[in-house]
């Protein structure tokens, strides 16, 4: 006797149940991100939202994207954001001053946007759309990546390099021109000796 094909009593497909749970987690997490007062919790809810989205990607038959989502968004970007939060916030910080004075207008715009998108989505007949999810194989993606999208791939690599260099440059502490004014905690032991004069 196999498990029932649908959820008992409600009659949904199991997939639908999972979808609803994940969607709820994602939207709830997202709302907590934008509404929460404690910014570190916002960051953690963002992680939750991203993880739920990864689950949705699995539902969409794209496990590769799901893994990349976890790897990049949770493992890298979220960590980076949490890192930045920890560097720039203190626990005694002004978490009560959360919202901008134009937040009512922002809310209006966001709701308007949501309504418009929903209306458009519902009333559009998407051409060429199948009735169900079509899983895309990893090999197909790999082949596309190194044939049709190879230029984009290279460009992205250059972009990432530029971003790394730019990030390092921006976040680097500038040497103060006055040697007496150098911060006390800055280590000077590791300095290299001045380059030798050669001729």
């Amino acid at each position, binding site marked *: 006797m196999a498990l029932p094909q649908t959820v008992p009593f409600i009659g*949904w*497909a199991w*997939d639908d149940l*999972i979808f609803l749970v994940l969607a709820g987690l994602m*939207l709830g997490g*997202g709302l907590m*991100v*934008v509404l929460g007062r404690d*910014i570190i919790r916002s960051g953690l809810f*963002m992680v939750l*939202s991203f993880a739920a*989205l990864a689950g*949705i*990607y699995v539902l*969409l038959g*794209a496990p*590769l*994207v799901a893994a*990349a*989502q976890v790897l*990049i*968004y949770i493992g*890298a970007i979220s960590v*980076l*954001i949490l*890192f*930045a939060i920890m*560097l*720039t916030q203190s626990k005694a*910080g002004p978490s009560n001053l*959360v919202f*901008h004075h*134009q*937040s009512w*207008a*922002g809310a209006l*715009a*966001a709701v308007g*946007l*949501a309504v418009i*998108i*929903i209306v458009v*989505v*519902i009333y559009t007949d*998407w051409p*060429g*759309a199948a009735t169900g999810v079509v899983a*895309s194989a990893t090999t*197909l*993606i790999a082949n*596309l990546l190194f044939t049709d*999208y190879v230029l984009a791939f290279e460009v992205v690599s250059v*972009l*990432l390099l530029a971003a790394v260099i*730019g*990030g*390092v440059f*921006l*976040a680097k*502490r500038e040497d103060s021109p006055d040697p007496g004014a150098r911060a006390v905690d800055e280590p000077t032991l590791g300095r290299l000796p001045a380059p030798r004069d050669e001729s």
Partner: protein
Amino acid sequence: MSQSLDAYLILSGLLFAIGTFGFLARRNAIAMLMSIELMLNAVNLSIVAFGAFVPSLAGDGALIALFVMAVAAAEATVGLAIVIAIYRNKRTPLVDEYASMRE
């Protein structure tokens, strides 16, 4: 429900709207960046959904989503570096206290 494109797109739209609200309403620069990440994720969701439902886009959707992620990583790097650099000068993460763009 999980087999209908519209559901995913509406979900994506809602997440995008949430991100928009966060970007417009939060005062904290990092919170704004997080909101941008939410919006990017919303876009990614719609892209992957199209890739999964439109057979002629099979593979492309996932691939473009991957590119978006790479670009998002770059964006986060530079964005956070800028935030930290500004924070070092202004000693505050609140965006509306930065006014140097008006000068």
